[in-house]
C-alpha cells in the first residue's frame, strides 16, 4: 500500500524552484534513503510531505490525504525532524516532550517512554537552552517518537550524534519500521543509512531518480 505518492511535484521557495517535477512512491513499512548532494531538494521534499511547503503544480498524497486539497489533516499522524529541534529553550526536556506528545494527541506515557528510550532520563529536568548539541538532537528525535507517528520524516538525523547515539537511533528506526512505521531518511552518511534502508532514491536538481542500492534479500521484508 502506498503511503506516499508524489507526481511531478514543483515547489518554489521564494524565486528558487527547490523541486522541479519530483516523482516518488513509498510503500508502508519501508525505510527509504534519500541521497543526493546539498541543495538538491531533499529537505524541501520532506517538508512538502509534511504539508509545510505548498505545491506549485503536480500532485502529492500522504497517508491517504491529498495535499492539494488539505495539507493539515495528516500532520497529526507524522513526525518530521528537521535541522531545527522544534523545542522551546525555556522548557525542560520532559516538558518539551510532553508538549509534543499532547499536541499530537498522544499520552504522557509516550513522552516518558521516548525519554527513557533515548537515554534522556538523567537530564529530564534540564532546560533545552542548557543542553549540548548532541543532547538536543536526541531530544528532537525523542519528541518525534513521542508523537507515535505512522510516518517518520528524518532530515539528517545522524548529524551531531555521538557513536552511541547513532547506534541507538538505528536500532530504534529498525524497531519502528518493524512496528509498521514508514521511515524516510535524508542522509549523507550513505554507508550507515544503507545498512538500515530497504531502498534508496537519489534527489538531484529538484527531481528524484532511482538509486543503485538494493537491500539484501530478506531485509526488504522487515
Amino acid at each position, binding site marked *: 500500500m502506498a503511503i506516499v505518492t508524489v507526481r511531478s511535484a514543483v515547489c518554489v521557495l521564494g*524565486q528558487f*524552484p527547490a523541486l*522541479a517535477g519530483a516523482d516518488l512512491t513509498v510503500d508502508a513499512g519501508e525505510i527509504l534513503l534519500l541521497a543526493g548532494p546539498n541543495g538538491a531538494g531533499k529537505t524541501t521534499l520532506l517538508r512538502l510531505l509534511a504539508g509545510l511547503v*505548498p505545491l506549485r503544480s503536480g500532485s502529492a498524497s500522504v497517508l491517504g490525504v491529498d495535499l492539494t486539497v488539505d495539507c493539515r489533516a495528516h500532520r497529526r499522524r507524522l513526525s518530521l525532524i528537521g535541522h531545527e529541534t522544534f523545542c522551546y529553550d525555556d522548557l525542560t526536556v520532559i516538558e518539551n516532550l510532553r508538549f509534543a506528545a499532547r499536541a499530537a494527541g498522544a499520552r504522557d506515557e509516550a513522552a516518558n517512554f521516548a525519554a527513557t528510550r533515548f537515554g534522556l532520563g538523567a537530564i529530564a529536568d534540564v532546560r533545552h537552552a542548557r543542553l549540548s548539541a548532541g543532547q538536543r538532537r536526541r531530544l528532537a528525535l525523542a519528541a518525534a517518537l513521542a508523537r507515535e507517528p505512522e510516518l517518520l520524516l528524518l532530515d539528517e538525523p545522524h548529524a551531531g550524534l555521538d557513536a552511541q547515539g547513532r547506534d541507538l537511533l538505528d536500532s530504534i528506526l529498525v524497531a519502528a519500521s518493524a512496528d509498521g512505521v514508514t521511515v524516510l531518511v535524508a542522509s549523507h552518511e550513505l554507508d550507515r543509512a544503507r545498512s538500515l534502508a530497504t531502498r534508496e532514491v537519489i534527489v538531484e*536538481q529538484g*527531481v528524484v531518480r532511482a538509486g543503485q542500492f538494493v537491500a539484501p534479500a530478506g531485509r526488504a521484508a522487515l
Partner: protein
Amino acid sequence: MSKQASGRAQTVNAGRPWLGLTAFAGVSATFVMGLVVAPKDEQQRDAYRLLYMHVPAAWLAYLAFTVTAIASALYLVPRTRHLRWDYLAGASGELGVMFTALMLAGGSLWGKPVWGQWWAWEARLTTTAILLFLYLGYLALRRIGGSPQQRATRSAIAGLIAFIDVPIVHFSVSWWATLHQEGSVFNDKMQLHIRDGVMQFTLLLAVASFTLLYVWMCMRRMELLALDEGLAERELQLAIDERSNRPATTNPVTV
C-alpha cells in the same frame, strides 16, 4: 502564440485611452471651474473653493477602502478566489491612502483660514487620521514578500480586519468628541449652502471626474500588478525548466 497574446493585450487596452483622457479633461475642467468660474461663497468667500478638492477626495477615500474590503472578501471566498481580486484590493488600498492624505491636507488648508487652526480634535477628522494609519499598515503588510497566494490571503484578511475597525473607530471617536465639545463654533462654520447652480455643477463635476480618475488609476495599477506578476511567473517557469533539464516552456506572458 505571442502574436495572439499581444493582440489580446491591445484589445484590452483599446478601450482605455478615452477613459484616461475623459478623466484628465474632467479634472482639468474642475480646476478651472473651481478656481475661476464658480462664484464666491457669501460667507466664506474664496476659502470654500477648497471644497471642490476636499469633497471628492473624501468620497473616493471611503469608496476606495470599501472596494478594498469587497475585493478582499471576494478573494477569501473559495468560489471567487482569483488573484485579480488581490490586485484590485492592493490598487484600491493604495489610492485610498492617497485620497485620505489629500482629504486631510485639504481639510487642514481649509481649516486654517476658516477655523483659525490647522487641526481640530473633531470626530470626523480624528477618525480619518486613524484611518490613514490603519491603511498605511495595510500597505506595509502587502510588501513583506512571500508567494502571490500567501500575500493575497494575508492582505485580504488584514484588509477586512482594518475595514471592520473603521466603524468602531468612528463610533468611539464621535462619542468621545461629543463629550467634551460644548456648542462647537466649528459646526456653524461648516454649514455651507450651495444653492448656486454653477456651484452645484462644479461640485458634481469634481466628484464625477475624480471618480473617473480613480477608476482609470485603479485599472492601470491592477494592470501593472498583473504584468509584474506575470513576468515574475515566467522567470520562475524558466528556472523550473532549467532545473529539471526540460526544454523551456514558451508560454507567453498573458494577463
